[in-house]
């Protein structure tokens, strides 16, 4: 069972709809035991970094997520991906989950239209199980105004938007993060979610 963490942030139903469509068993969970019992964990989220961390803390889920992400496949999506890093700088400096080294900062190129909204091409950088059967000319759907700054070795794929934007990150073990929305990225996104389900 894939646990979709429901901590009050974002459209969790989209993720559930996509997993249901793929026939992957999943459930919306908001307690430690369910996360512990799950075979894999997805952390969705839209909104602001500090507000989301606060909600995770108030739900008492921060420690369990850190523990379980070291033992079973874990995928953060959009804001959920950003929370994986050590620090966020949205409105204020804020600690993240620290599962992968790096920080999240505003995309501040004044020439850029912000948010980065729409379909952008995945450029592969490192091998990643989630990109199996994903070709070199496939697009996924992004909508965000902040981006991750992290080591190249943790980036499975990036996209070009005023420079490199980390799109899919992977710590080489269990932790994955997608800046884009695989649940809204058509067939390509479904392939990526199917690959994630295949890790169980």
């Amino acid at each position, binding site marked *: 069972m894939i646990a979709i963490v429901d901590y009050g942030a974002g459209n969790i139903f989209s993720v559930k709809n996509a997993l*249901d469509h793929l026939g992957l068993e999943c459930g919306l969970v908001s307690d430690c035991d369910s996360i512990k019992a799950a075979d894999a964990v997805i952390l969705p989220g839209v909104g602001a970094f500090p507000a989301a961390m606060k909600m995770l803390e108030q739900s008492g889920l921060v420690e369990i997520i850190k523990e379980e992400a070291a033992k079973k496949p874990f995928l953060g999506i959009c804001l959920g991906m950003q929370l994986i890093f050590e620090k966020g700088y949205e409105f204020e400096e804020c600690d993240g989950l620290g599962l992968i080294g790096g920080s999240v900062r505003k995309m501040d190129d*004044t020439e850029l239209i912000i948010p980065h*909204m*729409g379909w*952008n091409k995945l450029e592969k950088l490192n091998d990643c199980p989630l990109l199996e059967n994903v070709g070199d000319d496939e697009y996924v759907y992004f909508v*965000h105004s902040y981006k991750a700054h992290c080591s190249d070795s943790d980036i499975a794929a990036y996209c070009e938007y005023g420079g490199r934007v980390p799109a899919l990150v992977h710590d080489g073990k269990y932790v994955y993060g997608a800046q884009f929305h695989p649940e*809204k990225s*058509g067939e390509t996104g479904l392939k990526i979610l199917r690959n994630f389900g295949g890790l169980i």
Partner: protein
Amino acid sequence: MLAKRIIPCLDVRNGKVVKGVNFEGVRDVGDPVECAEEYNRQGADEIVFYDITASFEGRGVFLDVVRETAKKVFVPLTVGGGIKTVDDIRETLRAGADKVSVNSQAVKNPQLIKDGADIFGSQCICVGIDAKKIADNKWTVYINGGRVDMGIDLIDWVHQIEQLGAGEICLNSIDADGTKNGFDIEMLQAVCDNCNIPVIASGGAGKIGDFAEVFEKTGATAALAASLFHFRELTVQEVKSYCRSKEIIVR
């Protein structure tokens, strides 16, 4: 690179597509869910549902349509029409919409944009604007489906909604709408020059070259059309193939 988006829009009344059309493989031409699935197969980058239902009962049926579509179509879904309050936004997003489009009500109550963006995030607040030219380089904002001139300067309104936290603008030209003579390049460029959020071009698409023109001549990041796709004069993939031949990046 970010691809330019091609967005078909479906008008829905009491849960049925207005003016049904003969799509191949679509059994019920009036079924918005089936039409959305067809647009998805054609490669639509997003799908817009516009609710023109007047009744409370019709609204419930419409939200069921959104819920059903979100289970079958895995591209972003924008929902407009009839959204007046933060609760309406919440209800629509919970039904499975990724974004809501607010238009008349945002003009009457701009605070709706700020409240929506603060609570749900800018990414899901698209502000629809209907505007009409009144003089050289001057346009005013209309409400109620382009029937009432609010006398508000378009560019002032664009600045205001960006400040309030709108994540995107869908700009419809009343002058171009329904003419099939192409998008309103002049007005679109004026708006793109005056904001830093994505702008969707709407109104006037009549032939395949119009899509390439709007992307070549303006900063619009997406183009929307309803009847052109609806009556199958063009498919989304035909538009995309043509854009590609003009070296415009599309998915």
